């Protein structure tokens, strides 16, 4: 075989796969087609994913500190895993207002990010629906933001989390002298007299990003795979 034939065969065998699974899907998915909220209802309403918070710079902090090493952000459909069956992963199974809000991850869920941190391992839990979980369970009735700051500072401070292996992100916090009144976000952990623990800007961005992880909003009928009974909240 000559060098020329070798290069041609190599380019052909690699090029076909390269086009079919990398180039074409990537460019096809670069701009997703708008999806109607309700097909055939005559309103032409288009699904606009809702997400608020410091998503872009929060995601940078999330990436730089390697959160994706232990946490995934993917609720797989039931053919690919049991994520949907956990009561608080894909949504909240017993949401007080909306019934069962669990759903799988869709292509609009990473709105505002350049790279979806699907994750590579689940040494920790899935974070797709973290913010909703904090609201309804971890910090029920309290301040979600403050709970997350505390959790990042010391993931093992609650007795029920003493076995957590999540690293402490103390380095995202300052210990500063109290001047005048204590800061709003000062953490309730013991520290020297006259000092307080406050989050750095990175910690604020990260927490804002984490609080945007509420991937249980209603989705268009075309990709709502929930069984019909679960979709409608039960009337009181």
């Amino acid at each position, binding site marked *: 075989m000559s060098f020329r034939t070798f290069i041609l065969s190599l380019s052909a065998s690699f090029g076909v796969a390269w086009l079919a699974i990398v180039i074409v899907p990537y460019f096809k*998915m670069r701009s997703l087609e708008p999806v109607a909220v309700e097909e055939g209802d005559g309103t032409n309403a288009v699904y606009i994913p809702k997400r608020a918070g410091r998503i872009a710079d929060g995601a940078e902090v999330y990436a730089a500190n390697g959160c994706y090493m232990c946490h995934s952000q993917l609720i797989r459909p039931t053919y690919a895993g049991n994520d949907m*069956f956990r009561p608080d992963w894909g949504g909240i199974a017993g949401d007080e207002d909306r019934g069962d809000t669990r759903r799988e991850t869709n292509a609009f869920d990473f709105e505002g990010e350049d*790279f979806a941190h699907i994750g590579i391992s689940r040494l920790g839990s899935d974070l797709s629906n973290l913010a909703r979980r904090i609201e309804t369970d971890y910090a029920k009735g309290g301040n979600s933001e403050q709970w997350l700051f505390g959790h990042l500072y010391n993931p093992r401070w609650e007795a029920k989390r003493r076995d957590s292996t999540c690293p402490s992100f103390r380095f995202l916090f300052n210990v500063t002298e109290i001047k005048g009144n204590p800061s709003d976000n000062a953490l309730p952990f013991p520290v020297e007299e006259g000092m307080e623990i406050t989050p750095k800007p990175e910690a604020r961005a990260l927490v804002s990003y984490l609080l945007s992880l509420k991937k249980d909003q209603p989705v268009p009928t075309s990709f709502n795979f929930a069984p019909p009974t679960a979709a409608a909240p039960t009337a009181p």
Partner: protein
Amino acid sequence: MSSEVFNNLEQDSALRASIDRSLRHPVMFFLTSGAAWLAVSIILGVISSAKVHSPGFLDGFGFLTYGRTQAAHLNALIYGWGFQAAFGVIVWMLSRLSRQECRAAGMILTAGHIWNLGVSVGIIGILAGFGTGMPWMEFPSFCWPVLLLSYFAIVVWSLVQFKVRPEGHVYISQWYLMAAMIWFPWVFITANVLLHMMPGNPVMAAGINAWYKSSLIFLFFTPVALGTAFYLVPKVSGRPIHSYSLAQLGFWSLAVIMPWAGMQKLTGAPIPYFLPYLGATATILFFVPAFTAAVNILRTAMTDPEVVNNSPTLRFTMAGVVGLIVMAVAAVFLNIPGKTMEFSQFSMSVYGFEILAIYAFFSFVMFGAIYFIVPRVTRREWLSRRLIKMHFFFSIYGIVSIAVIAIFGGVQQGIGQEAFDQPWLEAALRAYPYAVFITIAWCFILFSNIFFFMHLTVMWLRLGRRSTHPTLLVSGHHGSPHGEEGDIDNCGSGTASAH
């Protein structure tokens, strides 16, 4: 007649000696700095692995947080050790196979320094908190053009040598190495340009990243290691390849199947459904190129088991080929959609498979090549067979533990994750014992590589034995621990008769 043959042999060894001499500095630079990066990577690996089970270990420093050390550990292993070992082997082996002296040693050496600079800046960038968060592409985004340019400056000379080589048969190792040299920049440019310069759908970007990881394993590290093994085994055992057509079948099945692999890591993600299934199928089919090559190499080597046992080169290479077989079995076992995929997708078996591919297969073959190449380019023999044995056995203990523990522990962990009626903590705690053992195993590997790095540095300083007898791993307690003395090489540097 006989004098003509003798004359040809003389000329032949003179040519080989001159090729080796022309490449001494670049090759030794790549191998030694690669080994140094390997040590750095293993130290980072021990630190990050310890953090998985003892989160209080070296706690509270930003640059030592788990997410950063683990990323630095893998990137140092891939770009610091893996690529540099591959460069050293590629430039040397293709020069030998093209029968051409290297005329660009200075250029290669300079480019090698730039590559090292790029890797250093990248690792420091990750530890300082500028990582991109894309697995295996965590280097800050200004690093990849530096790496790409220095890559071209390193390997382009091998292609030139191939073009101007004397006419003749093209050997299977040349196909493997040149294919790897062409696939890598294609994959590297595609992934980096798409992800850093043309942001698209974030989920598909994660898919490209998964494909990139898989392509580095299957289209760079695998062909480099196979090409090397196909060179070393016939060379040391003195026997031709068992079946040359089988070798070609192995090569083309690799070229046709493996570009499709990788996206099975996004099973269930919102990307086109066929992508994960294609990825899983291709990864499972890895056993075709792997088994054809492994059987061929084993059949060639096992015609004389004693040589395999005594030669450090063959012992490491054969261990690497066994690593390839285990890796192929693991590729089948871990990637069956609907059966094992859901257990392995997000567990530590992902890491286990990567370490299996990069260390148990690729690195072992590279160690074999290093034990072969270094005495030739430095014209000194390895100092001590005890050091080589230490390196071999501790690496074997370490890597077998990591592979077995991470893959089976990963599946155990996956079973816990899938048990949705149990609290999540149950699944998280299942990883604990396996993580402890992985730390211990990395300590073994660190121990073995300290010996290796010391030995290699001494060889680079040309403090090896001046002897015509290679250092063999013969057993028995008689005589010197450093092997037979043999004739002392007093021929002066560069004379042909010394080879």
